[in-house]
């Protein structure tokens, strides 16, 4: 298995560089790399003990692949494969597939890193390739949004590096365990970098604009896989080092509520999805032990929603309420939306029940509220008018590649619901249905009043960077008073 891990990790980069030599095989090679990751994830599930690889004798440079990594790798593989299939007929340049497969490889790398420096390299690579994918249409707007993303992520990583060297100074090792016993500023700096990179709470407010402006396949890849690369190390910290768990869970609850509030008042379909991603990343952090399954549920449904919204001629929800869309597009939209809201029979139900069952008492009210809020957010899509009238002109109809990609993702949504059959107990089903109904009723009643405009000023670049210093102070206080005591 050790050899396979090394081969699997190097494969996307090998494929990426060989596409330069074989530009005609771009799509096939990229798809092959994604399928290889899928196979690796399945092999990892069958592995009875976590796999640990130690490099460079005692400096703590290690890889750790366990069940949690397997869930995230599987999500990444499925989302990447779906995005490649979706773009199959769009005539994208080979460069797009090169960056996509490298991004896939670097996201995979973050899921098995167990030391601060490998993680740093992987996260920086994620940042660069994501920037190239966002900026690829070479319009001024996407260029600026990409530049802004790269700026924020690079500054966050500089703070992270400071934390990493302080950990090394204390322990002569870069292993994650070194955060324990380091002076309080080291965990504060590292956590701040990761919160920004992962899109958590106010540090994550770069996320809505970035996902809205990026092209649909890139936005699907970002929401489905890339943003989880920053969240995954936080989960590892929470599971490995108990003293940081309350901090990470508190940020999870805050993010879940903040994202849902933003999503409720948004009117652009893509922005609604992006803000909902912000909230779902919070859900991952709330219950770190069951986050793997939640990541799969969210990645599949959200990627399919982004790909579907990419097929709409119009993104404004008020306009969509007046122009019925084809039923053929409404069905995948509804299926994805229902899974996100936790409908029994779809993968979202199991994920939601597992998370809600393992939250602490103080989180439970907030998380139930966030679940109802999520149902209300997706009611925006589910209750849109639709028509089976086939009079739509031929060129606006979705291409077959869209259907294959949707089938892959939504097939996953239906099939993966069989993984946690023990979640189907009467009280849980009743509870989730009540939350769903409550959210829908709330949406129906409040629809007229949801015209509140939240200030966008917090999403400006200056404020995002300034917010980092505020966050750093808050984190320092939290680490110092909660985790060091």
């Amino acid at each position, binding site marked *: 298995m050790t050899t396979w891990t090394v081969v699997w990790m190097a494969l996307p980069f090998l494929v990426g560089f060989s596409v330069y030599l074989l530009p005609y095989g771009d799509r096939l090679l990229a798809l092959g790399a994604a399928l290889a990751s899928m196979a690796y994830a399945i092999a990892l599930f069958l592995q009875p003990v976590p796999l640990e690889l130690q490099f460079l004798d005692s*400096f703590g440079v290690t890889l750790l692949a366990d069940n949690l990594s397997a869930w995230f790798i599987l999500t990444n593989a499925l989302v990447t494969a779906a995005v490649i299939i979706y773009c199959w007929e769009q005539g994208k340049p080979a460069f797009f597939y090169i960056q996509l497969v490298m991004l896939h490889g670097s996201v995979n790398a973050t899921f098995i890193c167990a030391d601060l*420096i490998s993680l*740093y*390299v992987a996260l*920086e690579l994620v*940042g*660069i390739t994501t*920037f*190239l994918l966002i*900026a690829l249409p*070479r319009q*001024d*707007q996407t*260029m*600026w*949004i*990409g*530049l802004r993303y*790269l*700026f924020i992520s*690079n*500054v966050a990583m*500089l703070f992270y*590096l*400071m934390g990493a*060297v302080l950990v*090394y*100074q204390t322990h*002569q090792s*870069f292993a994650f365990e070194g955060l324990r016993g380091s002076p309080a500023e080291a965990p504060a700096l590292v956590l701040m970098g990761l919160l920004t990179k992962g899109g958590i709470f106010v540090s994550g407010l770069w996320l809505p*604009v970035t996902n*809205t*402006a990026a092209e649909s396949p890139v936005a699907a890849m970002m929401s489905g896989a890339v943003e989880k690369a920053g969240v995954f190390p936080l989960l590892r910290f929470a599971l490995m080092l108990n003293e940081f768990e309350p901090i990470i869970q508190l940020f999870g609850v805050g993010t879940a509520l903040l994202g849902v509030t933003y999503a409720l008042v948004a009117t*652009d379909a893509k*922005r609604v999805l992006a803000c909902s991603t912000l909230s779902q990343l919070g859900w991952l952090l709330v219950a770190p032990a069951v986050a793997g399954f939640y990541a799969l549920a969210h990645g599949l449904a959200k990627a399919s929603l982004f790909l579907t919204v990419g097929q709409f001629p119009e993104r404004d929800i008020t306009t969509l309420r007046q122009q019925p869309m084809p039923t053929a597009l409404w069905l995948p939209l509804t299926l994805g939306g229902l899974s996100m809201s936790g409908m029994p029979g779809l993968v979202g139900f199991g994920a939601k029940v597992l998370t809600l069952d393992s939250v602490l008492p103080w989180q439970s009210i907030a998380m139930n509220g966030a679940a109802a809020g999520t149902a209300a957010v997706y009611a925006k899509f589910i209750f849109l008018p639709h028509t089976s009238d086939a009079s739509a002109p031929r060129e606006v109809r979705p291409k077959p590649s869209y259907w294959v990609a949707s089938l892959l993702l939504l097939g996953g949504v239906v099939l993966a619901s069989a993984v946690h059959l023990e979640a189907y107990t009467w009280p849980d089903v009743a509870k989730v249905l009540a939350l769903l109904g409550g959210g829908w009723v709330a949406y129906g009643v409040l629809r007229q009043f949801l015209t509140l405009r939240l200030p*966008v000023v917090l999403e*400006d*670049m*200056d404020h995002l*960077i*300034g917010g980092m*210093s505020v966050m750093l102070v808050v984190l320092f206080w939290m680490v110092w008073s909660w985790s060091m005591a």
Partner: protein
Amino acid sequence: MLHACVYATILLGFFGLIFKENLVMKIIAMDVMSTGVIALFVLVAAREGIRTPIVTVMTPRNFADPVPQAVILTAIVIGFSIQALMLVGVMKLARDNPTLEIREIEKGYRP
């Protein structure tokens, strides 16, 4: 003393990032900040001595720690390639926004 200088460099770079209006100035400020972080790594490496860690016949004791230096080399390369990439992006943006004022750009390109 050296520590204070290093942290001052990082802080000055960070303030530049917040207060400079021009996009090119922001990139330069980011470079100042990353120089500070690199200096911090070098400083940590020189904690127990500043001799080059090469094994010779008579081994002196006060080696500099090679690990942070090796690690920061990676970070320097990454930082420099990100900066090159950003400058290319700024060149592209400068065609339509010759002043490169961040406020104007932000307002103009909000989706």
